C-alpha cells in the first residue's frame, strides 16, 4: 500500500509499536532462554521438581511452544510425588500437541509420539501395551529414520518377547530378529542383539545360539559403565562351555586388561591361561 501523508503518522505508530513489540518479545525470549537452560540443567542433575516448576511457569506463559510442552510433560512424569493426575496431564499435553503439529513436522512430533508410547508402556498401571505398540509402530512408520523410531524398535521387542511372551520362545526370538532386520542405528541394534542373546541363553539355555549375538553387541560397543567388560566375561564363559578356547581366552583377557583392579581379574587370567593350555595341547 503506497504511503500518503494521511497514513504516514498511523503507519509510523504501527511500526513503532511493532518495533517495541519485537523488542519486548526478544527481551522475553532472552529471559526465557536462561530459564529453559536452567530447567534442562535441573533435569540433567535429576532435580525433576525444580525442572518441573520452571517448565510449568514457561508452559503457562506460552502453551504453543512444542519444545516447552514436551519438556513440561516429561517433567510431570517424574516429579515427586508421582501421581496419576500428573501422568494424565502429561498425556493430555502431548496429545494436544500432536493435534496441533502438522503431520510433516519432524522436530517435536516424533518425540511426542515416542513419549505417548512410553507412558502407555511404563507409566500407567496396568500398562496399556496395545496403545504402546501402536504408538511405537506409528513412530516407525511415520519417521522411519528418526533415532527415537529406532529406540521404539527395542521397546517393541521387549513387549513382543517378554511382556507378552509367546508360548514358544522361538517365536519371540523370531519377532525380535525381524525388528533387528529393520533397524539401522548401532545403539538400537546393539540392544536388540543383547535381547536376542538373553532370550536364547536365559530363555532356552542355548549358549551356541546366544554367543553370536553377545559378540555382535559387544562389537558395536556398550556405553553404560563396565558393561563391555561384563559382556566380555559372559562371552568368555559361554565360549568356555562350548569348548571355544581361543574365543574364551581372548575375552577373559579383554576383561583383565580393562579391569585389572577388579576382584575377578586374577581368576579370569587363570581361566584364560587354562584355555590357552588346552589349545596348546590340541594336535
Amino acid at each position, binding site marked *: 500500500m503506497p504511503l500518503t501523508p494521511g497514513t504516514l503518522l498511523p503507519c509510523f505508530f504501527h511500526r513503532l509499536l511493532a518495533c517495541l513489540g519485537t523488542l519486548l518479545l526478544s527481551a522475553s525470549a532472552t529471559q526465557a532462554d536462561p530459564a529453559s537452560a536452567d530447567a534442562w540443567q535441573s533435569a540433567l542433575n535429576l532435580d525433576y521438581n525444580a525442572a518441573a516448576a520452571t517448565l510449568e511457569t514457561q508452559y503457562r506463559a506460552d502453551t504453543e511452544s512444542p519444545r516447552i510442552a*514436551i519438556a513440561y510433560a516429561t517433567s510431570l512424569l517424574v516429579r515427586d510425588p508421582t501421581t496419576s493426575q500428573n501422568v494424565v496431564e502429561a498425556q493430555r499435553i502431548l496429545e494436544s500437541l500432536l493435534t496441533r503439529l502438522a503431520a510433516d513436522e519432524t522436530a517435536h512430533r516424533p518425540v511426542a509420539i515416542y513419549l505417548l508410547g512410553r507412558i502407555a508402556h*511404563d507409566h500407567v498401571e496396568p500398562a496399556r501395551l496395545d496403545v504402546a505398540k501402536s504408538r511405537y509402530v506409528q513412530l516407525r512408520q511415520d519417521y522411519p529414520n528418526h533415532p527415537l523410531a529406532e529406540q521404539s524398535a527395542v521397546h517393541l521387542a521387549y513387549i513382543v518377547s517378554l511382556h507378552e511372551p509367546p508360548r514358544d520362545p522361538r517365536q519371540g526370538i523370531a519377532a525380535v530378529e525381524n525388528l533387528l532386520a529393520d533397524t539401522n542405528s548401532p545403539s538400537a541394534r546393539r540392544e536388540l542383539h543383547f535381547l536376542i542373546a538373553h532370550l536364547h541363553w536365559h530363555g532356552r539355555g542355548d549358549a551356541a545360539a546366544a554367543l553370536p549375538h553377545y559378540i555382535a553387541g559387544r562389537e558395536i560397543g556398550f556405553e553404560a559403565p563396565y558393561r563391555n567388560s561384563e559382556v566380555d566375561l*559372559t562371552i568368555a*564363559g559361554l565360549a568356555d562351555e562350548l569348548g571355544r578356547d581361543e574365543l574364551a581366552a581372548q575375552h577373559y583377557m579383554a576383561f583383565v586388561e580393562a579391569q585389572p583392579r577388579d576382584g575377578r581379574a586374577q581368576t579370569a587370567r587363570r581361566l584364560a591361561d587354562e584355555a590357552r593350555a588346552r589349545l596348546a595341547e590340541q594336535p
Partner: protein
Amino acid sequence: MNAARFRNRLAVLVLVVVFAVSAWHVGGRLFRAAKQDIVEIQIGHWLLHTGMREAFDAAIAGYQKLHPNVRITQIPVPVRSYAAWSRTQLAGETAPDITGMLSLNEELISRNFLPLTPWLDRPNPYNVGTDLEGMPWRDTFIDGLSAMANLTPTSGEVCGVTLQLNSLRLFYNRELLREITGSDKAPANFAELKEIGQQIMDYSARTGRRLVPIAGCGPYARQLFNTLLPSQTQRLTLTISPNRNLRVTSLELASMMLDGRVNYDTPEIRSTLNLMRDASAMLTPGFTQHQRDEAIHSYLQQNAVMLFAGSWDYAVLAQDGAFTTGMMPLPLPSADDPEYGRFTLGPVSEAAGYPEAMLGIVRNSRHQDVALDFLHYLTSRATAAEFSRISLRISSIIGTPPPPDGSNLKPRLEGELPGFTTDFGWFAADLSSNFFQREIHTAIGHKADVPAFAAKLNAELPRYLRDDISRHLTQIRRDTRRLDAQVVFHFTLPEDDPNHTSWTRHAEVQHMRQLENLHYRRHTTP
C-alpha cells in the same frame, strides 16, 4: 516493687547482652567474609575415628600455610546422625563447601554436588615434582575412582574423590597370643585359627581367666561371615553364575533358590552354614547382642585375644592398647582343609578394597575454586602420606606408604574371585536378611543345629525372597520411568551440546532395567 523492677531490668539487661554477643558474632563473621582477601571454606564429614580429625587439622594447616588468605574449618558430625544432618544441610543449601558423601543416593549427589569429571583427566597440580607428576588426577587413585563413578551411574559423572581404603582385618594381641600358644605367629588358614581358638579356650578353662578367642559383636560378626563364608561358594560361582560373569548377585541367588536350582541343602551352601557355626564358636558368647564399642573394649581390656574389625579401628587399638597389636587378613580355609577345602579356589582378592571418606564440592559453594584446590592438595602424594601417617589408615592414592606398622592393612591385590554370601545381607528391603538373622541362633552356640536351620531356611525363606525381589523391582521400575526423562531431556538438547549424544547411554541403561524387571517379575507372583 523494687525487686520486681530489678527483675525486669535484669531481664532486659540479659536480653541486651545476648543480643550484643550475637550481633558481635554474626557481625564478625560478616566482616571477615566481607574482607576480600580472606576466603573461608568448610569441610563437613563423619570421620571421627581416632586420628582422623588430627589428620584433617594437619592438612588444613599445611594448606593454609601455602595460602594464607584461606581459612578452612572442619565440621565433624557423629556418623549416627550424619546422614540426617547432611541431607538437611543439602536441602537447606547450607551444606559445607566440601561435604562428605555418606548414604547419599544418586539423586542427591547429582542434584547437590559439582561434577569433578572435567578435572579428573588433568594432573593434580600438587603432584609436581613427585612420581605422580603429569598423571591424570583420576589415575592417582587406586580404584581410578570407580567407586565414585558407581554412585552416579545414570549421569556418568564423578562428583567426588576418596581419601582412604578400608579393609577388614583380624587384629590380635601379640603378647597374649604368645603367652597362650608359645608363639605370636599368625594363623595361616582357618584350620590353624580354629586350633588357636581351641588353645585359648583350653587356657581359659585351665587358668580360670575368662578369655574368648575373638571379641565379637553383631555388626562385625556379619562382616566376618561375609568375608569367610564366600570361600565355600568360590567354585560354585564358576558353574552357576547365571550370566557366566564370575559373579552371583543376591538377586540371582534368590531367583535360583525360588527356581529350585539351589537351596541350603546344596553342599557348598550348607558348608557356609557349617563354617558360620564353627567361626561363631570362637566369638564372644551372645555376640549378636553386642555393639562395636563393646567388642573393642573387650579386646582392649584383654578379655579377648583377637578382634575382627575394620582398618578404621586400627588407630584406637594401636594407641589405646597396653600391648602390641598384630593384624592379618581373616584366615580362610585352605585347599587342603579336610572339611572346607574342596569348595575353595584359594585366597580372595581384595582388589581395590573398600574406598571411603568420599568428599565432594557442593554446587552452591561460593568458593568452588578454593574447595577444588584443597581437594587437589588433600589427595596429593605428600599430603596423602602425611594423612595416612597421622590417621593410621590406608590412603587411596597409589604408592602412598602405609601407616607405621600398618602394612597388613593394605588390601591384598592378588587372589581369586570372592564367592557369594548366603545370608542375603543388604539385599533389597533386607526382609530375607532379617529373617536369616532372626533364626541364626539355631545354627550357632552350644546347641547349634545346622540341619534344622537349613530346613527352616528352605521352608520359610522363599516368601521373604519374593517380597525382597518385589521391592527391588519396584525400585527398578521407578528407575525405568525416570530414565525416560533423562532420554528426552538429553535428546532435546541442542545437537552441538556435548551432552546431547549421551541420550543413547541413558536409553541403554533403561533397557537394562526393563530386562531386569521382566526377567525376574515371575518371582513376585507365587
